[in-house]
């Protein structure tokens, strides 16, 4: 496969102004990814600061209620800052520091990546600016407050639909404005090469841990691993170390929004087609003239019109399966897991739980499902209450 490509997907479709910056990043990453000191420092950050390894928890009550396959939860929600995002951010911030950069910029949707980036920037003494769509600033006021508390500047982006894709566009514009001292800490397995590879490698810790934890608990690999997919970073992290194990079925849950047959959806694999946007060739929700569609999901973190190029490739070769989950199904799963297991998942992660709720009852009791709970749901409580017609005040 060509450098930076996953089948036909990937590449570096970015302005010339950024080319030397991504080449510099690629060289630095090639050098540090096998550097012992770098990896020791990163592992120390994971274990001593982020709280890794995260638990692989046998969800007994969920398993019994669903009455089929055994269900395990990979608890990325227990990480510091409450989501898997910290894995990638600690890696990239450390890399930026080694490259002599003094400033991090990032986009954020739900605000989890923004909070994680602001956190890592504080920890490593870097300046931090986070771009966030104006709609998301409203939907996720708590995370905006947290970022500012952590010392980051939050820029509200009012262009386009005022959501994640516009935040990415604005972060890219800012990077073209200032590359010499600034690292763009991209939050998902998307964008131009080398980002999809770098972010995947830092998130791959999720499947590395699941593998050894499940072997310890069950003495065998799981039959299914399930994760939610927006850009796809927690999903690729969950899948990566199982890709060569053909007996493990990989399932990504996309945001179906109100319905995949409506315009109010963000299910890229199920409704999009091949295109070029945000630095990569992949699948995108778009109209017949290639205008990017204004997507919708109840989940700010999955509300993105594209998908990472490696997922597009795993879909093409049939190695992973991508299913749409509606807002309604996700909200039901959010409530189900809270009431059954005492775990409030992020609304993004609830998309993965929702699919497991359909799948588990159809399977024999000796089958094993692992669901990645990519983040915790505190940030979503107000909007889920609103979805159910209840106004709450923080």
């Amino acid at each position, binding site marked *: 496969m060509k450098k930076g490509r996953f089948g036909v997907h990937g*590449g*570096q*479709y*970015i*302005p*010339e*102004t*950024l*080319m*030397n*910056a991504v080449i510099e990043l690629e060289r630095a990453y090639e050098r540090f990814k096998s550097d012992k000191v770098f990896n020791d420092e990163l592992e120390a950050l994971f274990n001593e600061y982020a709280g890794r390894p995260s638990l692989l928890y046998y969800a007994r009550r969920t398993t019994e209620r669903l009455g089929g396959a055994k269900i395990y939860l990979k608890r990325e929600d227990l990480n510091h800052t409450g989501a898997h995002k910290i894995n990638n951010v600690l890696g990239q911030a450390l890399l930026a520091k080694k490259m002599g950069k003094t400033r991090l910029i990032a986009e954020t949707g739900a605000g989890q990546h923004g909070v994680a980036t602001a956190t890592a920037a504080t920890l490593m003494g870097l300046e931090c600016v986070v771009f966030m769509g104006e709609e998301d600033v409203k939907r996720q006021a708590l995370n905006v407050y947290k970022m500012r508390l952590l010392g980051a500047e939050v820029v509200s982006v009012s*262009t*386009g639909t005022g959501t994640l*894709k*516009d935040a990415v*566009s604005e972060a*890219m*514009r800012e990077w*073209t*404005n*200032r*590359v010499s001292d600034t690292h763009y800490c991209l939050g998902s397995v998307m964008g131009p090469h080398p980002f999809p590879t770098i972010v995947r490698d830092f998130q791959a810790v999720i499947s590395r841990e699941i593998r050894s934890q499940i072997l310890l608990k069950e003495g065998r690999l799981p039959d299914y691993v399930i994760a939610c997919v927006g850009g796809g970073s927690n999903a690729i992290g969950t899948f990566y170390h199982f890709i060569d194990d053909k007996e493990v079925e990989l399932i990504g849950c996309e945001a179906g929004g109100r319905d995949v047959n409506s315009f109010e959806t963000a299910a890229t694999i199920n409704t999009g*087609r*091949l*295109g*070029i*946007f*945000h*630095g990569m060739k992949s699948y*995108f929700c*778009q109209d*017949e*003239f*290639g*205008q*990017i569609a204004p997507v919708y999901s109840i989940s700010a973190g999955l509300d993105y019109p594209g998908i990472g190029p490696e997922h597009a490739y795993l879909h093409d070769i049939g190695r992973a399966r991508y299913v749409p989950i509606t807002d309604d199904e996700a909200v039901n799963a959010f409530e189900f897991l809270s009431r059954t297991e005492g775990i409030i998942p992020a609304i993004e992660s609830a998309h993965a739980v929702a699919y497991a709720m359909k799948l588990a009852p159809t399977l024999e009791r000796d089958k094993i499902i692992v669901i990645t709970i990519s983040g915790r749901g505190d940030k979503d409580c107000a909007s889920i209450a609103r979805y159910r017609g209840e106004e709450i005040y923080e």
Partner: protein
Amino acid sequence: MSKIQKAFSNGKAFIPFITCGDPNLETTAKVVRAAVEGGADLIELGIPFSDPTAEGPVIQSANIRALAAGTTTDKIFDLVADLRRDVTIPLVFMTYANVVFSYGTERFVKRCREVGIDGVILPDVPFEEKADFAPICEQNDVDFISLVAPTSENRVSMIAREAKGFLYVVSSMGVTGVRNEITTDLASITEIIRANTSIPYAIGFGISTPEQANKMAQTSCGVIVGSAIMKIIAKHGAESAEYVAEYVKSMKNAVRAANV
């Protein structure tokens, strides 16, 4: 020889950029003819894109207004066919990779040739990715125009050697838009360009006043102006033609005065 090079035979070139369909395509047709009348040597026609990541706020808004008015790629091809009844200066498209790719690159480029488009500029397609587009352009006598930036450094010679039509020199870091001052060391970039290619090169990004245009023309073969023109159109809407003609005239005079 590429038809685009004709644009540089009338002294230093002035190249306006116009987003098609802002506020509507009838106005675009008038504005393009007004720019020709004002002395434009080549015109960049922008096909609007929903998420133009290389543009500053002025051209972003122009794109949004154009799309909201129902502008599509097909309607723009029709506009160009109409313009070609009387407009003879070179015309190039400036748009984003997905607009061309989703239309079908071959189908898009063939339509370009049919209606009389001489070149295509895609700011999100760097040297490394041009194989998706450049060979199809070449087969159809449409120039795939390359850009160099202030950060290109060691890449300038490689890009210049394969450049077609004219080379687009990005004056400053960041996105398109009016700037008070351009501080990039353009002389060292243009020196490398000259050592590697004989095709003309024009400077764009951030230029709005006749003084800036004159200064930039002294170190280049031409000057590209986009945001300043789209600002005029944002202000005057359907009545923009005469204001654009006047502006283009003042800019062409400033550029012409830089002839050495």
